[in-house]
């Protein structure tokens, strides 16, 4: 039974395992020691910040090295989804000294507290940062009520 555990299929072995291992170990050290390399990007799950004003939401995520044509962004109801892929660096006739920039596909979906207006979405990709401004639906905006009497 235990023997099955060791029946690794080396054909399925991902050659990036050791490269990723290096950066993972590096991350442990730098978290503990305040240190050396802090890759901020996770290829499978890019970090996202959300902001809110009275009328808008704003999503911000860092996608360095991507082409804007390769980013898929969708907004519907109160959900925002973005997806894409960090392509691995490929070079010929060269030896890698370091490989810290992760490659891989990602897709993230967020549910916002209020419904949004699809007509009021503005997306901008500049210097590797995707910023999406999403207007709240009219029915979710506060309305000033005049008091009679």
């Amino acid at each position, binding site marked *: 039974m235990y023997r099955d555990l060791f029946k690794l299929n080396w054909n399925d072995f991902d050659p990036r395992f050791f490269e990723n291992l290096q950066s993972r170990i590096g991350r442990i050290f730098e978290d503990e020691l305040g240190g050396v390399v802090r890759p901020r990007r996770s290829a499978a799950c890019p970090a996202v910040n959300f902001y809110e004003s009275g009328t808008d939401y704003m999503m911000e995520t*860092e996608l*360095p090295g991507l082409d804007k044509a390769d980013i898929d962004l969708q907004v519907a109801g109160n959900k925002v989804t973005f997806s894409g892929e960090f392509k691995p660096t490929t070079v010929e006739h060269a030896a890698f000294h370091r490989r810290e*920039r992760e490659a891989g596909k990602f897709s993230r*979906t967020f549910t916002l507290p209020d419904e949004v207006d699809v007509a009021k979405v503005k997306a901008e990709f500049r210097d590797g*940062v995707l910023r999406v401004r999403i207007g709240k639906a009219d029915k979710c905006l506060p309305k000033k009520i005049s008091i009679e009497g």
Partner: protein
Amino acid sequence: MDEKINPRDGKIAKTELGAGPLKAEAVAHDRRIDTPACDIWEGETEFTILSDMPGVGKDGVTIDYEEGELKIYGKVDASGREGMTTLLNEFSVGDYSRVFRIPEGIDPERITAAVRDGVLKVTLPKLEKLKARKIAIE
């Protein structure tokens, strides 16, 4: 995967500490600095460094080479969120800085750099005399 955003979580209290040049200076010294992730490879004629610096434009990059050390610095334009409250905060925005010890045999005069879509590329050509040469056997 679906992630719900709760406006009551992760909200950051804002404290205004007055305005004017004094505050601007204090903020400038208080900038967070991250070490950017890099791919580095060595080809026949040069070393190349690719560095993830999202948020850094062409004008924000500073590169210094001195006594075998290459220092890269990327300044991030952190504006554009004025008057907004934070709902979810998975990353903090800061500048980037990293120093590399460069092996001997680099021609400092021919170092070039370019930044595109938040990725800095630095090319460090090797000195002519150190380039690998194919020796013909007679």
